């Protein structure tokens, strides 16, 4: 699924069938290139849901076992979300210092939360396993080896 499609998904508590919030963003751990938590808004308690706490990420909504999985950010998540904020529209730099373009959208696996592909504006796709870091200035990816 694409970040653009997943953003705005309702988060539904399966035990009560209530909507506990809406997905507003994603916190990504660069070393595993995976979503570690969802940022949620319009909730009663807290602002993030850890990926491991969700039941399923479906095409229409995200299901969670109980409303209590919505928590406040802790130090670990703060470090991932603070500078990184929005991945989409961030410039993409290779480890060789060349700019490839900006992130247009990101494809991820709804079962594991792992990012699969970065879709770039005006440049070829970048496989997410090339991700090295996400910062306030750029998304850094491993450079491709030079041809001939």
């Amino acid at each position, binding site marked *: 699924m694409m970040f653009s499609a997943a953003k705005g998904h309702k988060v539904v508590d399966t035990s009560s069938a209530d909507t506990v919030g809406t997905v507003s963003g994603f916190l990504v751990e660069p070393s595993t290139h995976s979503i570690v938590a969802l940022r949620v808004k319009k909730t009663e308690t807290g602002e993030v849901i850890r990926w491991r706490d969700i039941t399923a990420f479906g095409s229409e909504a995200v299901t969670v076992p109980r409303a209590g999985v919505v928590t406040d950010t802790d130090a670990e998540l703060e470090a991932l979300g603070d*500078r*990184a904020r929005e991945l989409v529209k961030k410039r993409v*730099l290779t480890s*060789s*210092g*060349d700019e490839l373009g900006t992130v247009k959208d990101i494809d991820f696996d709804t079962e594991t939360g792992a990012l699969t592909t970065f879709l770039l504006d005006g440049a070829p796709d970048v496989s997410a396993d090339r991700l*090295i870091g996400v910062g306030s*200035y750029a998304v*850094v990816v491993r450079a491709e080896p030079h041809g001939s």
Partner: protein
Amino acid sequence: MRLMRTSEITQRAVVTMAGEDIAQIKDVVYAADGGSVSGFTLAGRGLFAGPLKEFLPWAGVSALGADAVMVRDESVLASAPSILEGSGGSAGSAGDVLGSQVLTEEGIGLGTVHDVVVSVDVTGGEYCDVVGYEVEASEGLGTQGQMVLIPLPDTMAASGEHLMVPSSVKDFVGHDLAGFGAAVDRFRAHLEDSRP
């Protein structure tokens, strides 16, 4: 191996592998003997930022690319070596090569330095050497006013005001960066051959 003008390198962002722009390049510092780039002085990012105390040694550079200078993290920055503190480091002050006159050993002026050409190893880990100057030619070169590329030998004498080059350099002057690498190699081979 890639040739670049130092004017493309100054003001370029210094970015960590974590994606943070921690500084921008201010001056390119090179050794007078051998022409190898020892590192860069830095300036802060942002409208109100000024020069930084820290120095980026060449050994700390992971890659010098078309759009950014990559470093592993902030720990590669060092405090500025004392050789730089006296020179001030801003354009036009003593020690800055830009605007200096290029002289042959016979005392003929070839022009004033408008830009400097460096040869960079693509991954940045191996070397970065000054290989030529782009000068605004004087009559000594016969092409008054034009921008030309002058190759440099491996060893040369330089001070902030006068840069000495062998007279034979006139036969290896280039006009664009594309063929200049070959001109530098030919010039240095010529110097080797003519060594007594």
